[in-house]
Structure formats: structure tokens, C-alpha cells
């Protein structure tokens, strides 16, 4: 079984994001970038499937600038077998990503695509679902446990108020939640070995899909500074204050 894992290069979760002076976006100059944490969980899950003998090959794919190659190398160091980089310096929205992934699926014919449930830069939470719809494949989103057995994937999902297990016929789409696993750190020797693993370089043009953005960013600003709180005497004062603010 082949597993495809898309990985996104995002601003590192530890970095305090700053808005560019012209308010056109987040300042990324010389800022630490890393693999989206949810995608790390996806890679880990795929590598575990391979280690368990369930998967035979793990292919990772990234869409974005040349530096996404570093993100792919991280996945290769964790244990993925080869990478595909679809190069673009333009912003790609979830729908465009889903369309490109659909084209990759057509070429690679994986039986399972494992995506992060969302990326921590734009928090869209759309790509996996859109890809499932475009492919007309079953989907198990927000996975907290994945078991692949005899042509089926049993995916336990985190839902409001508890867990739900769905049985999906393969091929299928899974999106990962935080508690699915704890991704490993690549060992240093594996980082060196990953340099020799192949990465296929592609352009968006190779896939012939329309990736034009559907949204325009008007401006990006810092969240408003939280105002100082106030301690009130008693509940009636609280109620009247809230009323005065129009909150009640």
C-alpha cells in the first residue's frame, strides 16, 4: 500500500509572528519556518504504517517555494521514502492545493492520503475535505486513531463530546488531530541519509489545474491589545456594567 502525505512549510509555532510594516501579511524574512505540526503527525502515522508492514511506500508532497524542499527533507529524515515538490512562489489557497493533490493522486495512485487537519498559519481546515470531495473518496477527519486492515481504514475521530469510529473503504482520506501520535525527532544519521533520497521537482504548470486565488487579502493587523480588567464590588454592579457595555 502506498501512502501519500502532503506537508506544508509554515512559520514555526515558537515564533512570535509580526505583521509587515505595509500590512500586507506576516513578516517572514529570516523567520524560522518548520513543518506544520499536524503534518508531522501525518508523516509519523505513515511511517508507523510502514514500520508495521502495512504500508510499502511513503511519498511526501509539498506545494510552495523552493525552500519547501527543507520541509520535505525533514519528512524524509523521519522515514518517508521520496518527495515531490510542486514549486510556486504564489499564494495557493486550500482549493488550489486540493486540486493539485488530486492530480498527484492520479499519478501516484496511493491507497491512503494522510493530511493534517489544518495548517497553523491560516488555520483553514479545508484541504482534506476538499480533496475527498474532488476525488469522491471517503474521509475520516480529525483522526485520533487509524487502523488499516483488509482494504478498510478504521478511523477514530475526535468529535464534539467524544469519539466516533468510521470504517472507510480504501482508497481514503484521513486528516490527523493532535492526539493521534507523538511525532519522532529524526536522528542525526537519518538527516544525512535523507539527503540522498529523491525529490521530484515539479511546476504547477505540469498539472494543468486552475490555481488562481479566490480571495483578496485587504490587510493584516496585530490583534488588539487586551485592555486592563476591572474588579467590581458585587454581582449587581457587574450586571449593570455589562448592560452599559451592551453585552447583556
Amino acid at each position, binding site marked *: 500500500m502506498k501512502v501519500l502525505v502532503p506537508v506544508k512549510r509554515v512559520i514555526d509555532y515558537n515564533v512570535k509572528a509580526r505583521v509587515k510594516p505595509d500590512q500586507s501579511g506576516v513578516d517572514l*524574512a529570516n523567520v524560522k519556518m518548520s513543518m506544520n505540526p499536524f503534518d508531522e503527525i501525518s508523516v509519523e502515522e505513515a511511517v508507523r504504517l510502514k514500520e508495521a508492514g502495512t504500508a510499502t511506500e511513503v511519498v511526501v508532497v509539498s506545494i510552495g517555494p523552493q525552500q519547501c524542499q527543507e520541509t520535505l527533507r525533514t519528512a524524509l529524515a523521519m522515514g518517508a521514502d521520496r518527495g515531490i515538490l510542486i514549486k510556486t512562489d504564489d499564494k495557493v489557497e486550500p482549493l488550489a492545493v486540493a486540486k493539485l493533490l488530486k492530480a498527484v493522486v492520479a499519478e501516484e495512485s496511493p491507497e491512503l492520503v494522510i493530511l493534517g487537519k489544518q495548517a497553523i498559519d491560516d488555520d483553514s481546515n479545508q484541504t482534506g475535505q476538499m480533496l475527498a470531495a474532488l476525488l469522491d473518496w471517503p474521509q475520516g477527519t480529525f483522526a485520533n486513531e487509524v487502523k488499516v486492515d483488509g482494504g478498510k481504514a478504521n478511523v477514530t475521530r475526535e468529535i464534539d463530546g467524544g469519539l466516533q469510529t468510521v470504517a472507510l473503504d480504501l482508497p481514503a482520506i484521513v486528516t490527523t488531530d493532535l492526539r493521534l501520535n507523538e511525532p519522532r*525527532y529524526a*536522528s542525526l*544519521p537519518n538527516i544525512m541519509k535523507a539527503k540522498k533520497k529523491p525529490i521530484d521537482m515539479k511546476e504547477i504548470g505540469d498539472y494543468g489545474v486552475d490555481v488562481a486565488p479566490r480571495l483578496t487579502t485587504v490587510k493584516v493587523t496585530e490583534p488588539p491589545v487586551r485592555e486592563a480588567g476591572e474588579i467590581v464590588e458585587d454581582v449587581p454592579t457587574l450586571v449593570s456594567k455589562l448592560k452599559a457595555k451592551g453585552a447583556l
Partner: protein
Amino acid sequence: MSEFVDRRNLDFVLFEMLDLDTLLTTPRYEEHDRESITAMLDVVEGIAETNFLPFAAKLDANEPKFVDGKVEIIPEVGEALSVLGEAGLFAAGFDEAIGGLQLPWVVTTNINGIFTAANLSVANYAFLTVGAANMLNAFGTDEQKDAYLPNMLAGKWFGTMCLSEPQAGSSLADIKTKAVRKDDGTFSLSGSKMWISGGDHELSDNIIHMVLARIEGAPVGTRGISLFIVPRYRLNEAGERGEWNHIALAGLNHKMGQRGTTNCLLNFGESGETVGYLLGEENKGLACMFHMMNEARVGVGQASVMSALAGYLHAVDYARERPQGRPAGVKDQSTPQVSIIEHTDVRRMLMAQKAAVEGGLSLTSYCSLLVDKQKTAETAEERAEYDDLLGLLTPVAKSWPSEHCLEANKWAIQILGGYGYTRDYPVERHYRDNRLNHIHEGTFGIQGRDLLGRKLRAGVSALTPLRNQISSTIETARAQGLNAECDQLEKALASAEKAIEVVRSCEEENLSLANATLFLDAFGTVVVAWLWLWQASVAKQASPEAGSSEETFYKSKIAAAQYFFRYELSKVFNTFELVASLDDTCELASADFFGVS
């Protein structure tokens, strides 16, 4: 927000200042590139954050205990060290031929530094193992290497350095541990070793001690000292851990800091025979030890920088958050308080830390790079020049951070005020941890004598290679308009050279070295001023986008360099004059002058 690494500054030092990319084009290091080194640093930062940092305070509060003859340590320590082993970090700095990754030393030093900043008490076990393995690798027979290295490089067996004894610390010439030759060529050891870091614990399957001892009948003093491999458990036929080698833990020392690293008094050959295996040549033990000394001492400096970095980063965060008082001149007390970082004096204390930490890091990184340059030098002359430079700068790299980065930890405490003095915040721990660095691997005083006495007065090292490096930085810096700094640095160097001249021509050794420790400190400040000039000139050449965080970064470099020249370098002139005057106040002070008469 990360409290123990500054990756932007590390990138600056490695790639913009020291031009690591060029080193990576040499055949020895060509397997590596910026991308893979960055990936390794990412992994290291992740492991340090997940497996080291979270229990640093807990380990400090729960120091190892001696219970029923065994050492008890909180379990997190063993877990963290096994993660380190699995990630291949014990082996990373060794040559590919013996299973390492052949990483440049300047990278290894900085990888180590990240673990130090996160939780140095734990990292120490690994560093000691790497140090012992290094020595085995340099001087061991093939048989000895095969027996010990694979398990040490995998992090399964740990190592120690056993030099000091209760009665002999600075003066290793006076050690007494005895080795008696046996018919089979091995030795039987007896005696006591004091202060042995990692000397006993249950964290690893075996502990391989590197022990200095005198073979019966050896000449007195340093020429009669040999080095031995002494495993805690002898190896059985299969090469695995066999029977106990009778190294008894006589007690644990209760330390001011670095409390998670066991520190032991060990007795050899007391209850039964302790077998030792000669490493290297007979009576050449100290030479073997000193072969590793440059790396070890630069490592001590690096540890000091890292304790200070951890304190500094905490203090910065705190200063941004803590509201207290109003700016000087604001009389209206109904106005809101400002964060303390708005007070100039608090920013002065932050600047002092930044200057010491980033100056110190450039120093230890530069010295580590010299180790790599020695290994990649194309000619014998080139190698000799790097050798000379490293020899001269090693006491500086060991001592300058130990003094000035410890001072930085003091300022971190100060910024937290009363809170800094409590154990609820990590800054007092970093101070305690850092305090050791002035003492071990040769005290401040011993380093002062090494630099001014052995190296400069006796002529073991020349000043010329350093002078050449400084001149070339000055030339670049002048083109960047840093003339005032260049002039001041030239003056300081001339003043140091004058002091060295006087010391060299003074026949009375004792008098000439009376102020050697102060000389070392001032000389270190000159060296760090040079490295700050270098950093400022790199920063001046950068062209970041206006208003970006990059612009702020480079501006902060230029400001810190200015601070260092105006507030620190300005102090050295007095010291050099004092040294050059051969001041004998302390030399003539009678021992009877002190204490209660």
C-alpha cells in the same frame, strides 16, 4: 517563546560571521551543508525543549541521593539521555570512519550548547562520555577502541575524567593514585579520586573512567603520571559488562549548582582489585589529557555562555511583562505604570548581558572553528598558525565567559528583583550552575598563569597570529566607518603588548606573574572587543528591509558593539598599566596580614 536558544544569533555567528559555508566546502566536511546543519539544529532544539528543559528545576531541587550504596536520580535524566543516544548525538562529532557524522567542531559545540542551556546537569553526562571517548580514540590501541568505543558512541556506556584527588586539584603533579603492574600487562589501581563528575550512577550499563595514576617507581611530578582505562565493570569474554571492578562510591558531594550531575569521591582497589589498562604511553598521561584540553576548556567557556544565555532570555521576557514605576520625570501617579524594560537602567543591565552572551558565543565558536581549521589546513605552516592561535586563546575562551557571563547571570537576577532571588524563577539556578565554570578545568588563577606565564612569557605562543587576524578585521571595519572603535582597539592592543614586554623582560618570575589573572581578564576583553568589531562590521554590511525585524537585529548588533567598546574595553587600560608597573602590593603582602590577628 523559547527561553533557551537564540537561533537567529546562532545563524549570524555560524554563517554570517564565521562563514561556515566555506568550511563546508573542504573535503573533510563536504557531506554537510547549511540545510542539513539547520535540520540538525532543529532536531536538537526540539529534543532539548521536549526532553531536557521541562525538568531542569525539578532536578535541581531533587539532587541525586546515595541510598544503600547506590545513587538514586529522578527517572527523567535517564530518559533524556537515551533520547540523546537514539538521535545519534553522542557520536555526531566523531569521524565517519568510526561511526560518527564528522560534524565540524564549531557545530558540535553549539549543539552541545543548546542542551546546556536547557538542562546542563543532564547534558554533562553526555559531554563527559564524548570527552573520554575522544581520548580513547586518540590514544587507544585498536583492541581498546573496539572494546569500548561502539557502546560509548551509542550512549550505552558513559565515561568520566578522573584527575583530581582530595589533596591534588590544581597541582596534578602531586596526585598519589597508584598503579601496580601485573604479569599480564594490566595494572592494579589503588587510591582516591575526588570531584568526579558522573563518577557513579545507574544511568548507563557501564562507566568507563579515564584515570590518572602513577606507576610504581615512576619519576616524581608530572613526568611520572600515566593514564588508564578503568571500567566500573570489567568486560567478560563476550565483551559485555562483567564483574564489578571494585570502584567504591565513598560519597556524593553536595554542590551549589549543577546538582543533577553526580559528583563523587571514588575509592579504587579498596574492597578488592581494581584493574586498569594503560592508555597511551607510560608516564605520558598528562600529555594525553592535555591533548584534549583545548576542546574541553573551550567547552567550559561555551557552557558558561549558555547558562548566561538562558538567564538573559528569561530576563528579557520578564522585563517586557513586569509593570513597575513611571519614567523619570513623570510625576503624575495616576498614569499607568510602564514595563520595567522602559527604564534605561534595566536596558543597561540587558545590554550588559547581551554583550557578554553574544560576545562570549562568538569567542567560543571562533575557537571551536579553529579546531576545524587545524583539521582542514592545507599546509603545515597554516596548521601551525591555527594551533598557535588556539593555544593562545584557549585560556581566554575558558575564563572570559566564566567571569563575564557569570556577571550576566547576576544582572538577570537583578532584573527580576526579589523574584530573581527566589527559587520560583530559574535565574538564580543559572547563576549557581555557572559558578562552577571558574573553578573546574583549571581555575581562573591557573588559566592566568597559563596565558601570561607559560604562553606569553615563556614564549610557547606568539601574539602575531592573533595580531594578524585583528588587523584584517580592523581593515574591513574602517571601510565600514567604524573608525573610533578601530582606534580604541589598536590602543588597547598596544597597551597589552607593552605589559607583555615588561613581563617578558622581568627576571623574577613570581613578581612578573603577580597580576597574571587580571591580565588574562583584560586580555580577554580585548579579544572579545575584536570579535564585537567583527560582528558590527558584518552587521553594517547587511541590507535588511526598512522596518523589518532583520533591521532591528542588525541595529542591535551595532549598538551592543558600541556598548562593549565604551563600557567594557575602556576598563582595560588601567589593568594593563598595573601589570606593566609590576605592582607588588599583593606580592609583598604577608600572609599574616589577613584575617583576625
